[in-house]
């Protein structure tokens, strides 16, 4: 029971009210994905954790949950990378530098970075999974000495779908990150691996007890990747995933994002595999 006075105070503000954000940079990264750099009014910092998301709203078109792809160490702005798939995102793709949009958040639980201090990291990104993982990668690059070895495994459909190409090269060039990449379908210039991302995992050299694996990708990818990671004997609670669900309110109320008893928008989107194992059957990403 909340105190009545406190309650009335809470009633004065609305968590449904978005802040004003201005696009200060916009560019197409691939045919379908567009990058946006957004500045909040009065240059307020979003103060998010890597792995959290915001609700982006364009009045008249509604709202959609979008992962933040910059690190909290990038001050004064934050980045989003959006694929054109729905009502809101197709409208968002029409916006450019100088346009305004509404932002609510940040919402949810991000990657458990404090728990990951001192550990080696294997980061597995499938397709758009690199978008939320970029927030983690940038955070790691900024605080590189807090972590052990970092390996990034990247998978995508074809070489032209590769996101943040230059940035990934830069991470690799600084030799602080081991990097391996695979595509489902090569083009004539491609010299790297061809095949599913799961094929990269058996070859990874790790000390499982000292390693956190972080996995983000399309829903179908998880159970296979998690299966490979379990083969490596990485403990359940050191396998971290971020789950996609339909989110409408971000406040743990509207019900759309629920997996069994958990609201992904509040309890997630980041979970560890020990938590996933508790689900009885509604979590598609759980390994068999």
């Amino acid at each position: 029971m909340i105190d009545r006075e406190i309650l009335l105070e809470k009633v004065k503000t609305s968590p449904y009210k978005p802040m004003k954000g201005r696009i200060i940079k916009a560019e197409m990264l691939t045919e379908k994905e567009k990058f946006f750099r957004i500045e909040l009014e009065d240059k307020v910092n979003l103060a998010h954790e890597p792995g959290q998301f915001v609700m982006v709203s364009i009045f008249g078109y509604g709202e959609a949950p979008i992962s933040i792809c910059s690190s909290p160490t990038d001050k004064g702005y934050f980045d989003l990378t959006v694929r054109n798939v729905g009502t809101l995102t197709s409208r968002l793709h029409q916006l450019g530098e100088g346009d305004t949009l509404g932002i609510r958040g940040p919402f949810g639980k991000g990657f458990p970075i404090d728990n990951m201090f001192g550990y080696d990291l294997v980061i597995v990104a499938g397709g758009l999974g690199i978008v939320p993982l970029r927030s983690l990668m940038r955070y790691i690059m900024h605080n590189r000495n807090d972590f052990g070895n970092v390996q990034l495994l990247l998978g995508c459909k074809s070489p032209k779908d590769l996101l943040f190409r230059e940035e990934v090269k830069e991470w690799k060039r600084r030799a602080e990150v081991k990097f391996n990449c695979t595509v489902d379908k090569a083009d004539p210039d491609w010299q790297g691996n061809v095949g599913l991302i799961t094929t990269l995992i058996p070859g990874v050299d790790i000390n499982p007890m000292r390693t956190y694996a972080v996995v983000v990708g399309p829903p179908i990818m998880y159970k296979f990747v998690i299966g490979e990671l379990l083969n490596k004997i990485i403990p359940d609670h050191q396998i971290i995933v971020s789950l996609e669900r339909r989110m409408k309110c971000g406040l743990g109320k509207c019900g759309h994002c629920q997996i069994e008893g958990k609201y992904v928008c509040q309890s997630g989107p980041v979970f560890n595999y020990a938590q996933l194992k508790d689900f009885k059957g509604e979590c598609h990403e759980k390994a068999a």
Partner: protein
Amino acid sequence: MKYASLKKEDLNKWLEHLKKKARLYAPRKKENLFVFRPVKNVKDVCLEYMPTILPPKKYYFPQKEKLLKFTVNPFKTAKAIAEFEEYILFAVHTCDIAGIQCMDVIFREGPEDPNYLNRKEKMTIVGMECFKPCDKYANCVSMGNHVPRGGYDLMMVDIGKSFIIHINSQKGERLIADLSYIKGANENDMRKLEEKRQEKKKIFKEELNAPLPKVYEAFSSQGSFDSPLWDEVGRRCVACGNCTAVCPTCYCFDVADEMELSFNEGTRFRIWNYCQMDDFARVAGGEDFRKGRPARQRHRYYRKFKYPVDKYNRYFCVGCGRCSRTCMADIILIETVNALLDPENAASYVGSVKNRPEVK
């Protein structure tokens, strides 16, 4: 004064008084069913009624509720409504009061929902205890909601020639203060109340085949989650969403925008949405995270008997029976739960196809 007494002939006088105090909503007849409606004529108020088509949730969690007003250019937002009117929900059954308590738990949990809290703050509840089981669809006794368990401001009990009113809050007390025709209850009244309650114990019987902890246990097993029973329930379901619309504890919603003709101003509102709809858990990319009616029906049952119990130690089925009464495919909650309690027969469960609600 903890208990007051009101003679039946003075009821309409009191209703007139309440009407002046605040907006008054009470049950009345609509064709062969009942609905909560604003009271225009106190004579229309119906105190002996079956659970209404919709629970009073339509007043504290409206089907369509404004969240924001906005302007596209220049970018501007404002909270849509600051003030609501004071209102009284009159003659609410104990099952519906339990429903309000469930909603409180959800919307008070941080981050709090200001729209709900605001409406709740303006609400006064006058309850009405039932002494006649309503029909075969209600399971209020098993849920423990056939008797008052708090959550109201006043509770009326019909003891023949008069009503005994239990005063449960200051808000409630103000509604009966300084009225010559409402007096403190005397010993005789209290004895009659006790007699009524004893009598009630004999008439009201548990509807489910096992006590609640057993029901929870049944829902907790992996076997129940994977039971073929859900295929049978899902096979009959027509995904109309009626069961969730009429449920006093269903609170899922969608958020949408509506533009003015100018296309510059508009309103963002929330609107009831149902987990039984096939696009409920589908994302823009196309992935559907709860595919198929069996999974969606199972989700509805688990959101009544399992998930909220884990989270809040509270069953979100209040036992009003509305979902069964309204179902076009005869999916009956008591039947489903009883079948689940009996794992050996759950596999071969076939729902009875019957019959429309028995409404007098």
